[in-house]
Structure formats: C-alpha cells, structure tokens
C-alpha cells in the first residue's frame, strides 16, 4: 500500500503543537521549538509529521508553519475540531484502508487480527501493532471507528453512540 506508517502521535500532541505554534505567531524553527519545549527532536518529529499528514502544518527547510486548514481546526470548538480532524484523517491511506475493510464487510465489526494481517503485507508485526494503536486513537477521537477491547473488534460507531454496560 502507498503511504508511510502513521507517525505515532496522539491527538492531544497534535493539537498542543498547533496551539504552541499559534502562540509563536504561526511559524517556528523546528530545533528551536524542540529546545523551548524541552522535548527531544525524536519525540517531536512524529507529531510534526502527523500534523503535516493531516494538512494542518507544512514543514519545509527546518521550519514549521500552520496552514489555513490548521487554523480552521484550531479555531473550532471541541465538536468542530473532531469533524475537521475526521475529514482530514479519512484521507490518510491507512485509515482509509480500515474504513474500506469495514465497508466491504457491510459495516459489520471486523476482528483486529484481520486488520493487522492486512497491515502486515507492508509492515512488520511490531509496526502494524503500533500503527493500529495510533489509528484507533485517531479514529476514536474523530469518531470514524470504534474499538471493542473485550471482543478485539473494530467497528463503525453509530450516529448516537450508546455505551456498553
């Protein structure tokens, strides 16, 4: 499949990065940003890459800058942010793959194992696990996919989510 693995960045980190960039006037030198946050460059780069993949920032020549789409996301309230994130994440190849598998299964839940297996056509077992973990985190936040830990199944969330009890 096309596309690199999803960088392992949590949704909060992506939003935090945008908020900090906004405080800095929308643009910053990446090494300087890492230093001022006392954050290792190795930890910061996946977050930057994730934000870039979602179209919220552009990183070029050692600088990072928020895009208009990124500002639109940042200015939204909690629900608007989720919707914008969902629209952006839907087009990320790996997320698309999961959504397509669910669609092929007519919206019925699919076992986590099947997704891991599909991912392992291109990735190692460890990479596939990490990727799925990130995809579930993003998918839950964006309400694109749900995950049932007890059944180890990925499912499409209902419109009005009812809790399991």
């Amino acid at each position: 499949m096309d596309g690199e693995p999803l960088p392992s960045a949590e949704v909060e980190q992506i939003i935090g990065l945008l908020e900090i960039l906004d405080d800095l006037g929308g643009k910053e030198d990446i090494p300087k940003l890492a230093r001022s946050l006392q954050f290792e460059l190795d930890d910061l780069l996946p977050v930057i890459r994730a934000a870039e993949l979602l179209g919220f920032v552009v990183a070029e020549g050692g600088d990072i800058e928020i895009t208009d789409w990124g500002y639109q996301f940042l200015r939204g309230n909690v629900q608007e942010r989720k919707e914008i994130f969902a629209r952006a994440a839907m087009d990320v190849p790996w997320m698309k793959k999961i959504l397509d598998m669910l669609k092929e299964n007519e919206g019925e839940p699919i076992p986590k194992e099947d997704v891991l297996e599909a991912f392992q056509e291109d990735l190692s077992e460890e990479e596939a696990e990490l990727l799925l973990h990130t995809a579930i985190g993003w998918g839950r936040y964006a309400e694109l996919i749900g995950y049932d830990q007890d059944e180890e199944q990925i499912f499409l969330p209902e419109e009005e989510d009812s809790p399991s009890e």
Partner: protein
Amino acid sequence: MSLQQENTNLKPKVLEVKNVFRTYHHEDTNIVVLEDVSFDIYEDEFVCLVGPSGCGKSTLLRIIVGLDRPTRGEVLYRGKKVEGVNPKTALVFQNFALIPWLTVWQNVELGLEARGIDKKERERRIRYWLEKVGLDGHENAYPRELSGGMKQRVGFARALALEPELLCMDEPFSSLDPLTSQNLREELLRLWTGKELPTVSILMVTHSIEEAIFMSDRVLIMSTHPGRIIRDLRVELPRPRNMRDEEFQKIVDEVYTLIV
C-alpha cells in the same frame, strides 16, 4: 502593573481556610506540614496554589475537599464548617486515579453512583460531560488503551459530572508531555472562560509559576518546611494569555523576584 497584592474582591466567598495547621507525629517529633494557612476563595475565581514539592499544598487540597482534617484551624464552605467529604467539591488527580478494569463510561459513573444519583440522570451527565471534554467515541475504552492526555480527560469528565461548585485539581497536567499538557490547559480554560463549567470557582495546585500565571486569576505562593502562604497575587493579564509573549514573561519575572 499587572500584579496586585491587595484583595478587593466583593463577590460572595465560596471557601474560607482559617488558621489551618497540619502536623504529623513521627518518632517522638512533630512534623509541621502546614502552619497557620489562611485564605478565602470567592465566586468566579480561578486560584492556583504554587509551591515546591513538600510544601504541603496537596495536603491542603485534601483538607479543603474533606479527605483530611486540619490539626488546628478550620475550613468553611459557604460559611459552614467542612466535616467529611464536601459534596460541593470534586478532585482531579495528577495520576488520573482511574480504575483499570472499568471502561471510560464506568469510571465516570462510579462517582455518580457513590453520590446516589439515579440511573437516568447518571446517563445524561456522563454523555454530556464525555462530549464536553472530547471523549465521545471512547465510552467503551479501558484506561490502558488510552494516552495520558485521554486518561486525564476521563479525570476531568469524572470530576465535572459531579457538577462541583468548587473544582479542585492536584497537579493535573504535570504527568503529561509538554504538547499534551498545553492542549489540555487550553481546553480547560476554554470551558472555564466560556462559562461552560458547572463550577463557580477553581482551585488548582501546581509547582509551576508559569502554569499558575497562565491559568489563574490569583496565585497563592507557598513556602516549604513548614508550608505557609507567603504571597497572594492577583493576575490582571487579559485572556487568552500567551505564555510565549513578552508581557507574560515580564509577569513571570516579577513573581520570581518577589519570592526569591
């Protein structure tokens, strides 16, 4: 000047801490953790207690919510003495304090059940607060599946679902990485300044002066051994504040000068 030391608040008092002492006995000696601590919190105030570790600020918070008792002195809530856990308060913990074998939904529900709230009202509140803190979609997740930031969102939802008048937080951002903590601080402030919280006042404990100035209307600075309040400063900086601009840094410097 953006820092004022006199308190001219004319709003009703929510909390009065009056000459609180807390001592522990250890091998024939008395260890004084808190010494003669007094302050009030008014309606619509966001107050931060700042001090180094070991200054007794977490003990003070536990006394305020009624999980611990002062050795001497008293705490009044809306003029009445606090004895036992105060149902008008709720606490957010540094390490989330979630129950690992319960889902997000069940973790939030537990505190509501303990307060005898009926099922229908529990469901309404859980749904409402999970959505407010951005956790809809995570109802059936277990804590181990969640990032630190998501876990602390559960911590907020659990506290807010109790609809506390005084929300108390003990270092709620300090076990999160710098990006995640920035995100959660801003989201909490959005709810607070947007008047979306059920809460009339917030008391937050932190060891970070920057964080205190960023978040609060008033900063109480504590000394250590024994823990006392040495400064009571009002932060007049307009919101939204920017930790990275000059004016903010000037106030941070002023506070450091006052306490060193």
